[in-house]
């Protein structure tokens, strides 16, 4: 970028490629307003297949974005929780998307 170039686009925040997959975006968005969601309920809300949900949750858990596990109160089901880090990074991702939309309006 040249100095004093007024037509230059404002800098865009980087988008986390982990969230690019549409199904992952929907999964994280469903988890955001919740303390936890059971696997079966998450299937119902997101509308993705069981195997796809398992695959995406594994990828998100490996990256430390979600916690998937059994709890004392829930021995059979699997409760999915958005971690603090996942919540923060997802907020950054959504802010970046909003910035893209805002910048395009200018």
């Amino acid at each position, binding site marked *: 970028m040249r100095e004093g170039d007024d037509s230059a686009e404002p800098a865009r925040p980087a988008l986390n490629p982990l969230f690019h997959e549409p199904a992952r*975006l929907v999964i*994280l968005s469903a988890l955001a*307003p919740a303390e*936890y969601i059971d696997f079966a309920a998450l299937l119902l809300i997101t509308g993705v297949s069981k195997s796809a949900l398992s695959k995406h949750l594994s990828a998100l858990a490996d990256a430390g974005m979600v916690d998937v596990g059994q709890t004392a*109160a829930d021995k059979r089901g699997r409760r999915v929780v958005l971690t603090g880090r996942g919540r923060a990074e997802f907020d950054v991702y959504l*802010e970046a998307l909003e910035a893209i939309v805002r910048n395009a309006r200018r």
Partner: protein
Amino acid sequence: MNEEDARNRLSASRDASHRSARQGALGTAVITAALVIALGAVVDLEMLWLLGLVVLGFVALSVARPLKLRLDWSDRRGMLLFAASGLAVIAAYLLTQWLARSVGWVAPNTISAFASAMVIFAACLPALARLATGQAAVGRQRKSGDA
């Protein structure tokens, strides 16, 4: 990523968040309405010894629910809506109770509990969903609790 793509993603994200919040609010409303109706029925049937069992059932259902909402208490409008819906539930209970007693209906407590349950679904459910999704703003510091 272009603007159109970003807009579509934001829209998909909001839809999923609202669906999730609505589902969680529905679960909470069902459990609360069931508790209110059970309490009304127990009082009308004069089986107060069942109260312990009703409370235990409520606690068990609360613990076993598939989705627990994370409420944003920093959303003032949502908080006001929730408080107003709580007052509406109490008002519906009192009004129906007064009506049922003045007309001489049997089971006035159960009838007023049903009226309260309807207000829970009509008013508390959307208020809870609103508190869970916040103001659809991201990156805000949330003062959260749960429901």
